[in-house]
């Protein structure tokens, strides 16, 4: 089943073509990775998919035929390139932001979350090994801890589709793998679909079904991740 489809997306900002005829299809339950050099347009493509930027031309379809509307926004999660955490709030309150759209508005404004949501948040804290940091301000956390908070937040949203922009960027390979292992475990458990951006070819190959290579605003190549070897990927990427 196709969960997301983009058709001929073009984006022109200030006279510069940033996305050039990008088409992309994602099957439900798949994990795809977009790779490519700095400035290729990966983040911009994600922002168009998320509705933060409007494409100049082209179409987006979610869940077999719908454009981006309020109900669909509820089930699309986003982890931006620098995580988008609220530094002055503690870990628990950052995670609860993920549940904003799952509770009545007055509850979210008063900060009165129902017990089942609090329980879910605590469970996620547990899975992501953040329980001991529950009351710490996010600004005092390490890079890896922040990534885990961002994952917990997006998971509490109960999304069907997650877009994650370089979520392991600042981590070493070991920490990256730990984070990605947890995400994959949750992906299976919650039946998620993932659209990711990675720079590390090992991570990309290990954790995705399909890799899209983006160069200069174009999707140049689509590769099944298990059908290529690492060197080929590095070559394609560095071209």
């Amino acid at each position, binding site marked *: 089943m196709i969960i997301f489809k983009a058709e001929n997306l073009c984006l022109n900002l200030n006279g510069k073509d940033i996305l050039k005829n990008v088409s992309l299809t994602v099957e439900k339950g798949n994990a795809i990775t977009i790779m490519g050099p700095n400035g290729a347009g990966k983040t911009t493509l994600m922002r168009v998919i998320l*509705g933060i930027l409007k494409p100049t031309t082209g179409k987006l379809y979610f869940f077999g035929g719908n454009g981006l509307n309020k109900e669909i*926004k509820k089930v699309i*999660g986003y982890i*931006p390139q620098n*995580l*988008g955490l*609220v530094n*002055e709030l503690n870990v628990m309150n950052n995670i609860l932001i993920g549940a*904003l759209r799952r509770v009545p*508005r007055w509850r979210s404004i008063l900060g009165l979350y129902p017990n089942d949501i609090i329980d879910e948040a605590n469970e996620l804290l547990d899975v992501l090994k953040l329980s001991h940091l529950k009351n710490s301000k996010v600004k005092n956390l390490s890079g890896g801890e922040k990534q885990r908070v961002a994952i917990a937040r997006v998971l509490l949203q109960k999304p069907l589709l997650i877009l994650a922009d370089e979520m392991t960027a600042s981590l070493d390979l070991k920490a990256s793998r730990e984070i990605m292992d947890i995400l994959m475990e949750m992906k299976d458990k919650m039946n998620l679909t993932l659209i990711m951006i990675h720079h590390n070819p090992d991570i990309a190959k290990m954790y995705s079904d399909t890799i899209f290579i983006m160069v200069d605003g174009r999707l140049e190549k689509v590769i099944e991740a298990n059908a290529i070897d690492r060197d080929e990927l590095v070559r394609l990427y560095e071209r």
Partner: protein
Amino acid sequence: MKDRLRYVWLSLILIIIGSSIHLGFNPLSLIDDSNNGYIIMQELLAIDFSVADKVFYAVIETLEMATIGSSIGFALSIPAALLAARNLSPFFISIIFRSIVSILWSIPPLLYAILLVAIVGLGPTAGILAIALFVVGLSGKYLYEIYESQNPSAYDVMNVMGSTRLQKVKYVTLPEASPYMSNQYLFLLSYSVRESAILGLVGAGGIGFYIMQYLESLNYGKAALFILAILIITIGMDYLSSKLRNKMVH
């Protein structure tokens, strides 16, 4: 580049000299025999402590005026700044509130006090309102700039989820700005102590009111004690507020 800088300095000096000639400004007139400067100085230095009890009440009144005025002004400046911030408010609303804040900021507190004394009469009420109005402008301008310069990616996350403005304000804007806001409040407290000390000159309560009275009746020694009081509470408040602000940062 270096040459151009030299021209800037040169023309600045010429402007200062030209303006002084235009205004007939002569700093030497301060020590000229034909002036009363020397006599007044002497009388001021003979501080008259017989009015110490009045000074005490005037200081309390000034501190109260400053605290109430700046607190009201600060509280009102928060919604004003939220409505003025481009990233939080619809285009036209933000233009309207930016203008309101700028206008309130551009009028000095003493001018508000003159107008308010005419409206609500002599006394601290006029002073409190004058401080509050100016502080809405001063603090509103500062706060909307803080709100607008916040990291946009937390807002992106909220927008993608389809959150409302109120949710964004509660979960991103206010918490991220809170260290700046408490700093700002402490600064405003000490700032408005200094401002409200002089508002009495136009009849709006506080220390200045007595200074004006004693100066007019040529009681320089008594006025001097009130001036000394201004010096002490201004420096005292500045010290206290910067000490507290430092404490909060660390």
